């Protein structure tokens, strides 16, 4: 389904021009295979957020190439036409805070994405319930976001990221607001979901306790990534 996961080569991003131009990314290379969960770590100002925005098709890179599954997204100034549809159908997002829509119940928060893509309501809700069951929050399906615990909200957010079966999920500090036990639970879920749905997952994190769980880690510093093998201890 997801072909080659996500692959970027020589990705650059320059803000501004002339003397005041800032190179936030200076030729980033990265590849994440389907079913793989990798960590992306780096200090503040290293270019993590810029890379995440490029990967999430929110901003255009200045140069470089990006392939998602079998689809070319950017190639040296060229890009696919409809980034909005790309984000909706091919990229899943999990944020630091769950950012669930407060006026939709749990099921509809998850089902909203397929609905936006034109999937009939009942089918979208069926997909949502399936994922909620997989994430063990099906019993809160009719609850409103404010009625959920932090861990439950994050699981619902993961379900939302997965519901359109994207080839890649970008998780931005998904464990930041959680205690150790819940943070580990989230990482375990991400690993399970990556395996089950053959999805490439990139986890941006500062969280020391989850860094050892990754088998591969990308360090980013001054706009350049360095790949290294992680401890890969996984999650008990």
């Amino acid at each position, binding site marked *: 389904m997801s072909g080659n996961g996500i692959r970027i080569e020589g990705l650059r991003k320059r803000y501004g021009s002339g003397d005041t131009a800032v190179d936030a990314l200076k030729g980033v290379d990265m590849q994440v295979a389907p079913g793989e969960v990798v960590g992306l770590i780096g200090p503040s100002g290293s270019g993590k*957020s810029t890379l995440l925005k490029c990967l999430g098709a929110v*901003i255009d890179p200045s140069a470089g190439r990006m392939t998602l599954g079998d689809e070319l997204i950017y190639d040296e100034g060229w890009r696919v036409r409809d980034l909005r549809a*790309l*984000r*909706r159908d091919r990229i899943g997002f999990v944020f630091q805070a769950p950012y669930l829509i*407060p006026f*939709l119940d749990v099921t509809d928060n998850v089902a909203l994405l397929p609905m*936006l893509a034109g999937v009939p309501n009942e089918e979208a809700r069926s997909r949502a319930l399936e994922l909620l069951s997989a994430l063990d929050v099906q019993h809160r399906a009719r609850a409103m976001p404010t009625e959920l615990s932090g861990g439950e909200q994050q699981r619902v957010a993961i379900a939302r990221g997965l519901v359109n079966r994207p080839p890649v999920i970008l998780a931005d500090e998904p464990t930041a607001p959680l205690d150790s036990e819940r943070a580990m639970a989230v990482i375990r879920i991400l690993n399970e979901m990556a395996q089950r749905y053959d999805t490439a997952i990139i986890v941006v994190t500062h969280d020391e306790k989850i860094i050892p769980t990754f088998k591969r880690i990308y360090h980013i510093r001054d706009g350049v990534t360095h790949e290294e093998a992680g401890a890969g201890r996984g999650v008990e």
Partner: protein
Amino acid sequence: MISLAGRDILHSWGKFVFTGFGLGLLIGVTLVMAGVYRGMVDDAKALLDNSGADLWVVQQDTLGPYAEPSSLNDDLYRTILALPGVAEAANVTYLTMQVRLDERDVRSMIVGIVPGPTRGAPGWPPYLVAGRQITRGHYEAVADVATGFQLGDRIGIRRNQYTVVGLTRRMVSSGGDPMVFIPLKDAQEAQFLKDNDAIWQSRRRTATNPAFDRAGVPGLLDAVLDSQSSNNFVNAVLVRLDAGAEPDAIGAAIRRWQRLTVYTRPQMEQILVGKLIATSAKQIGMFLVILAVVSAAIVAFIIYTLTMDKIREIAVLKLIGTRNRTIAAMILQQAIALGVIGFAVGKITATYAAPLFPKYVLLMPQDSVAGFLAVLAICALASLIAIRMALRVDPAAAIGG
């Protein structure tokens, strides 16, 4: 696709209902203002309808008897009555004054009509809701129920007391003052009667004038004094025409041969609506514009605030691929919903509050429809600022950094 606007409204219904209630009161005031204008126009038309006249004959070059003073000799009606096509002609006087009942007084339009054999003539109240018409030549009155007078009440007009013998309804002046009908002679006296001191002073002045005290004309002074203490003038002659008679032709004949001014029904309506209440109408129009602007500003502010509260959710929605038009539709629908709630509250408020106003408030269905459409348009326009802001939200705002 689910309705995002509907879900948001259901989720925070209290905010919407209370805001809609406040907006509704404003819309209610707007509807009442429109109703006041309609009431003024209706009062003017009621005045013409209830007079039962086809032609108004008034002093030359005046807009009388309602918009300007007019004075005619009270025997002129006989010559008008003799014209072909004229079925009835009746003298009438109008004067607005305070009518007393015990310790209170009521602003009323006094209408002097010829009682007795001319019953049902132009100028008479066309129907009564209680009691009887005036049958005696003096000191009887028929009052509109809006005066609050009851049958048998003794009311004071100038120096005389009148017994209320009949009650009528919707007989009002163009200004909305309820009418009190009294015999013509009494009305003439009420209109022109001076107080005793003024009469005495006038007689003294006249008596010392050598022009009225000439040798060889012994009755001259008495005749002059008599003429000064009587009043033979009326404000207008109301004319009812035979079926099929042409008002314009008869009016032209009266203008030519009697040297008077004559107004037909459309002309009189134009005077009342186009001139007499024109300033009030402009005033109300200004208020309507101000209220519309205030309503728009309130809706814009509320929708803007509600949208600002959801800025993070909007960024997330955009990031996960929601179309701009879906987000714009959500905001627009919420603004429209607010308008609908406000209009419903305003319409109910105006309907129940209208009878409590001292002047007649006429809420017309077409005004409600126009008001509803205006509210929808205002809400749609007011939502544009919030929509513009929402569409400018960067989806990247959902991602940290």
